[in-house]
């Protein structure tokens, strides 16, 4: 592998990593406030992607204009998921896995019925082509996606740290009982978290659909990536998620550059198993903001 290939892989991996950060945030926010592991996370993103594709092929608008629409379109599902998660019996982490396994299957069936398992891609002409920069060729689509992801993550960071509802979410995520004792409306904060997380998933879905082909069963890989990122970074630590996301993107790009794309899925699963074994205390133990 030449130095140039290496640099190329590092840069495009880092760009992809910005997207991974955005993609994983919804998973980690919900885990933070509800202690529930959402296995339907990736399927929701794929659903957002399909909605984006459907709007794009119908209207021909620039995909970036469809980002907020897809984000808003998932909001009703946020309320439904919130209602379901509210009813989870103990042990929450395990029953959330079983419940969301079912929800994941349900979403895949619905997408299969609506879009018949065909591969879809938002192949907007405005996103193809590449820029040359210091001897590297940067894929324009990845640049736009990375910029959009960073913008959304930045806005979320400001919202979570500077606003009243953001602080309520962070307090609830840190310690639900203590937050409730301090007069924070934790139910309200939980609902806000679901709405925000699903909005992020819709946004991530449209961006994803410009990078990768969509197919109904494609969500599991995103879910696994989100879990890996959450293990690496911890819940609710936005800056750590960004670092972990970029690291993950670089690892993936190096894997692909070194051995070809067919090893990618295997590497994702290996990273998940290794991260779980290395952090055997459980995801939710000893985390703070």
């Amino acid at each position, binding site marked *: 592998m030449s130095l140039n290939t290496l640099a190329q892989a590092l840069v495009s991996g880092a760009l992809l990593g910005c997207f991974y950060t955005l993609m994983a945030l919804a998973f980690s926010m919900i885990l933070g406030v509800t202690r529930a592991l959402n296995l339907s996370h990736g399927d929701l993103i794929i659903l957002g992607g399909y909605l984006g594709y459907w709007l794009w092929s119908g209207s021909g608008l620039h995909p970036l204009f469809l980002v907020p629409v897809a984000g808003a379109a998932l909001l009703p599902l946020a309320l439904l998921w919130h209602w379901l998660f509210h009813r989870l019996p103990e042990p929450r982490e395990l029953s959330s896995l079983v419940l969301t396994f079912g929800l994941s299957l349900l979403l895949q069936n619905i997408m299969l019925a609506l879009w018949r398992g065909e591969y879809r891609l938002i192949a907007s002409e405005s996103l193809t082509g590449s820029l040359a920069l210091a001897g590297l060729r940067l894929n324009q689509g990845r640049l736009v996606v990375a910029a959009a992801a960073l913008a959304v993550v930045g806005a979320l960071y400001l919202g979570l740290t500077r606003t009243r509802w953001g602080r309520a979410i962070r307090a609830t995520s840190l310690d639900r009982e203590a937050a409730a004792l301090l007069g924070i409306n934790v139910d309200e904060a939980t609902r806000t978290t679901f709405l925000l997380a699903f909005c992020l998933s819709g946004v991530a879905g449209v961006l994803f659909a410009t990078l990768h082909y969509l197919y109904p069963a494609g969500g599991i890989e995103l879910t696994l990536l989100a879990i890996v990122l959450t293990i690496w970074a911890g819940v609710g630590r936005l800056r750590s998620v960004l670092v972990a996301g970029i690291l993950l993107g670089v690892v993936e790009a190096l894997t692909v550059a070194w051995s070809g794309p067919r090893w990618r899925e295997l590497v994702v699963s*290996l990273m998940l198993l290794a991260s779980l074994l290395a952090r055997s205390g459980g995801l939710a133990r000893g985390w703070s903001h």
Partner: protein
Amino acid sequence: MGRRGWIGAGLVAAALLVLPPLTGFHPYYLYLVSTALLFGTVATSWNLLAYAGQISFGHAAFFGLGGYGAALASLGGLSPWVAIALGGAVGAVGAAGISLASARLRGAYLALATLAYAEIWRGIAHNWTAVSGGGAGLIGIPPLPTLAWLPVDFTRGRAGSYYLSLAFLVVVIAVFGGILRSRVGLAFAAVREEEERASLLGVRALPWKVLAFALSGLFSGLAGGLYVHMVRVVEPDLVFNRYFSILPLVMATFGGLHTLLGPAMAALGLYLVSELLLHPYVPAFHQLPYALALIAVVLYLPGGLAGLLPGKRSGAA
């Protein structure tokens, strides 16, 4: 289990026994019910593991390892019976391996580890082309031999694998029943209910967990070996398919966690409803029963369907 339960189970078993001649040895229906019976076996073996408190999201790993092990042995010239037994051994070793590796993981995190484990094996089967044949898999697996001392209609082709699947399911249920009544079953229940207290009383948890995994992997591996000799091909996306992880979990929880016959009954019911009633009419939605069953079980019936029956408690052998 009450008397009515046994009578019901006896009736189902009798119906299954006479089904092949009644359908005129119809290959498609026999194939469907055989697959349902194999799912019943995997669901029962999943339930055996759950009885020891370990929830798996990756039984596709053990099923697929058994399938590949048996296929490779069979293609290497061994008799299909030996090959299937070897497949079972491979499944047991694979299950014991993940159990040992993830000895410190509990509950949801163990479940996630098994999910990743199944995906890893699928990836290996896809990429280790020299052995596994890659994504195209391996073809030309010999059929199960007929048995000379039985009427040929009953052991040939689909009917042969049907009766074998049925007999295998009965054996696995009988073994599970035996375990429930033995000291092993007591140890499993102790590990499940209170791991720390059990270890204080001298029941070391890890060997029992590994044993439960190995037994569950053995039965799932045998089912995988039988399956590949039934369909006579093996592919990564066929035997390491996520459905072999999802469906046993759905069937066992829907049929009643820790009950003897519930998972097998739920497997037959759900699989046949899905394939016979939904698949022909609404193909895109034929997996809907599994999804809805999972959601309903978690939210409304923590004991599974067995919780509905009066005078029964989940966990009572």
